[in-house]
């Protein structure tokens, strides 16, 4: 019977592997922007079964392999968005301040056209995040934009690090004020996080002690009560999950670093981090990373003290920094967002491109797989007409695992995968409305937006 079960498991595992497409393809004669190993003129990139197998001049295509002529074009690693909410049916389980047990992987929607639109902007990987309604939200899922699959499982980037969303400031305190529960202030946010970590620690210790005693001779006793919530918190304390924390102000950024220091947590990425420029040395010293907007602020009180130089200041202070979208619109032109760091901060081409490739990969714990064009990495590639950091840069083709998922020349009008037989689509907009683009991180939290807080809510 056990053998049978193992066999079924194996067959399932093979089934999923086979279902995921891995392509073999040669991209010839482009200007290859490796990001980590310089720029190579007139160079070929060979992808075999989904992995980059060779980067050199004059590679001869193996028999039967498709060749893309990239003469005069720019070939860069697929863009990575470290903060997005596309391809999700549920974003906020905002009913409680602490919900680490929930996982957006359970709500992946592979049919969202936003995935294809992201591909049309050269973006191949995104970090599908829980929202910012509560202090400790849910676990996030790094996805590959393999648009066209029918099963959300196949969008999950296999082997990607576990990540979880935390949130500080106005969003979680607004939740508390509405329900009359903690947290209602920034002090409250710190308290609920500390309390949660303490409970997680007790839980971990209780199980450790039970498991030790259990094997002892003649042991009689009850196991501790199982809790998926505390189990997840214990996993954070063990260093198995990277914290991605929604934050704006310098004081709250310092606060979370202090909390993490007290609990021995080392893996922290700050999201938004609008006042990161004020605490850049402290972030660098802690080893925390930062994912920021290029120039987006003033949509509520806590984001007024902001600057477009934020990314450059953080980078120059040695903080691994990425630029993210947090929006199904910006995700389509993250290369423009990265280009802004050259206007505001004079970053080099490689530094600017790192913000949307290798640095984002480091923050998601996938830098050994994606984020640069190097032999052995995944065949995730974006091909541009004109330099991607130029205002004239236009994505032509986007590959994931060596498979072409976007081709500007074969861009069909209706890219929906599943069609609702009851839905009548208005002409000429065939897609689901994506209004409130910038409010996605507050999805299901409309009540909060209705609360008049200084009249500054977006």
């Amino acid at each position: 019977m056990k053998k049978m079960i193992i066999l079924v498991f194996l067959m399932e595992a093979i089934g999923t592997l086979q279902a995921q497409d891995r392509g073999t393809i040669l991209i010839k004669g482009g200007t290859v922007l490796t990001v980590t190993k310089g720029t190579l003129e007139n160079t070929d990139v060979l992808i075999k079964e989904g992995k980059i197998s060779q980067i050199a001049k004059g590679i001869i295509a193996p028999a039967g392999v498709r060749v893309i002529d990239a003469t005069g074009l720019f070939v860069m690693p697929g863009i990575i968005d470290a903060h997005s909410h596309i391809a999700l049916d549920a974003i906020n389980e905002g009913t409680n301040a602490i919900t680490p047990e929930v996982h957006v992987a359970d709500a992946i929607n592979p049919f969202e056209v936003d995935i294809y639109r992201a591909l049309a902007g050269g973006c191949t990987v995104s970090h599908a995040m829980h929202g910012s309604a509560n202090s400790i939200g849910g676990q996030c899922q790094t996805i590959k934009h393999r648009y066209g699959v029918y099963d959300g499982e196949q969008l999950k980037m296999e082997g990607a690090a576990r990540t979880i969303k935390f949130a500080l400031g106005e969003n979680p305190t607004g939740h508390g004020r509405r329900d009359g529960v903690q947290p209602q202030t920034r002090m409250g946010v710190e308290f609920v996080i500390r309390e949660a970590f303490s409970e997680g620690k007790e839980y971990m210790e209780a199980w450790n002690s039970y498991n030790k005693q259990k094997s002892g001779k003649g042991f009689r006793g009850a196991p501790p009560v199982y809790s998926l919530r505390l189990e997840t918190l214990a996993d954070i304390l063990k260093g198995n999950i990277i914290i991605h924390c929604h934050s704006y102000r310098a004081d709250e950024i310092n606060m979370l670093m202090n909390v993490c220091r007290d609990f021995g947590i080392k893996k922290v990425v700050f999201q938004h981090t609008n006042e990161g420029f004020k605490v850049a040395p402290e972030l660098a010293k802690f080893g925390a990373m930062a994912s920021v907007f290029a120039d987006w602020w003033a949509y509520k009180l806590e984001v007024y003290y902001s600057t477009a130089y934020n990314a450059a200041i953080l980078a120059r202070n040695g903080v691994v920094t990425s630029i993210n979208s947090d929006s199904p619109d910006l995700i389509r032109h993250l290369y423009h967002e990265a280009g802004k760091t050259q206007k505001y901060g004079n970053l080099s081409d490689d530094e600017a491109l790192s913000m949307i490739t290798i640095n984002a990969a480091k923050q998601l714990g996938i830098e050994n797989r994606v984020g640069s064009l190097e032999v052995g990495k995944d065949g995730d590639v974006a091909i541009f007409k004109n330099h991607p950091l130029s205002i004239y840069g236009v994505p032509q083709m986007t590959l994931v695992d060596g498979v072409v998922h976007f081709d500007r020349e074969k861009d069909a009008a209706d890219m929906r995968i599943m069609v609702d037989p009851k839905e009548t689509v208005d002409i000429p907009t065939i897609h689901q409305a994506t209004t409130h683009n910038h409010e996605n991180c507050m999805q299901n939290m409309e009540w909060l937006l209705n609360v008049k807080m200084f009249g500054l809510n977006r």
Partner: protein
Amino acid sequence: MKRISPNRPGRYWILLWMLVLPIGMYGQSELEPVTRTYALTNVNIVQAPGRKIDLGTVLVKDGLIISVGKNVSIPPEAMIIRADSMYVYAGFIDGLSRTGVTRPKEETNRERPKDPGNPSNERAGITPNTDVRNLLNPSDKAIEDWRGAGFTLANVVPYGGMLPGQAALILLSGRTADDLVMQTNTGLYSELTGASGVYPNTVIGVMAKWRDLYRKAVNSKNYEALYASNRNGLERPMSDRVYEPFFPVIDQKIPVIFKAEKLLDVQRVLTLKNDLRFPLILAEVKEGWHAIPKIKATGSKVFLSLDLPEEIKKEEKKNDQKTEEKPKTPGEIEKEQLEKRRNEAIASYTAQAATFQKAGIVFGFSLLNTKPKDVHTNLRRMISAGLSEDAALAALTTSPAQLLGMSDRVGTIDPGKMANLVVSDKPFFSEKAKIRYVFVDGVLTKLEVKENKKTDASVKSEIEGTWNTTTQSPQGTTTGKVVFKKEGGGYSGNISSSMSQETMALKDITLEGNTLSYKYTLSFGGRSVEVETNVTIEGDSFKGNTSVGTFGSFPIEGSKNPK
């Protein structure tokens, strides 16, 4: 949640609730039948898919099938039913519905609890200890309606949230709730439905809570076993009404019956099954064909929905020549392409059963979102999309019997089995077949064949004007005033009734010969209910039925106001 103001349609709301309360009006006659022995003679017997006896006899006695065949001797006490050249099938079985189940009263002014993150189990939709038997109402009109559509057994579940309670297989005939019950606890029913405003609110919350509850239940069960083996020196295990219903699931004795309509629901439920390894029945599946490999690999059982999306009515092309002259605008081309894709989607839904048949998956049908009057049409649509008639019959009889573990008692016409039978005047899947007799547990229901007041296209009825209507429902007579006005090629209109001060606009008014139908939407308490009326006109009066959402169908009569 919207508050209901007391002087608005709240009154209507209460009246509607009365429709579903047990009133006893539909209770069966108190007289015992003169005999419990019946002989169906000269009938084509379809014993099981692919197994047929031409013109034979089925003898039924005391709720059981006694003999089946060509040379059956009929005892003198038998009531003989001359089913000359009719067709008899095993009674149909519904895999998931709420037929006969009382809908709970909705608390209209439910406030958010003090701490929405920690609501009571009940508020969170976690009531696996609810036994649907306690909610059965034998006089629910739906029982009669579904029996009339050929269904004799239904696997019914309570209303609720993520874990509404325990299912039971019920007979669609009986005087008391206990009469109805054929098998208790046929599964633990679940949906991916979040609790409104409290934890778990979203699908991610529901799935996390599901894993948490299941693993807690496993631990609780293990500890109880440990305690039972040697109690000395151990703290007593806590009794828990939420974990205990999971125990037979953990023992693989009963399945979790999970409603999963859309493809993503199916996949999410399969993810839970893979994580926790419980036996699973996927039910009310509407969009499952892309998940077939996973369904097979996990050994999950399936009930496909008998509900289908409506076909798009083709506009009559009267002006063919004119449209050919003009080149199509980009908008028209886009509209055509969109319609083409929508039609393809409808076709895929319709072909789902055929696709499952081809993949070799045993499936039954569930009726959760289907109306009795659509069963025959939808089955015929599925058959014309490639489902074989044998497979369709299997999905109504032998397959659900197998999936629910009842094959030794129901599903075929064989001696010794329960006398659950359906008799139709023509082969059941043919267009004009009508059900004439239904046996449930040996109890006969004879169905009235409606007078053939079919659409008479030659009659030209004129409906413009004001009509006074009366509707009979369990709480009495409702009067209404319906006004029709000519508009363009068709009609517009509105309705006001004794139940509501508001006047509601009519939609989809269609008049074909002497048959008239119209719809309108009743709104109350933030909810809306579709009302659909179908009547046949004779001079200045009409007769027919009006169906009020899922509350049931009621007779309606109308007469035109002379001007």
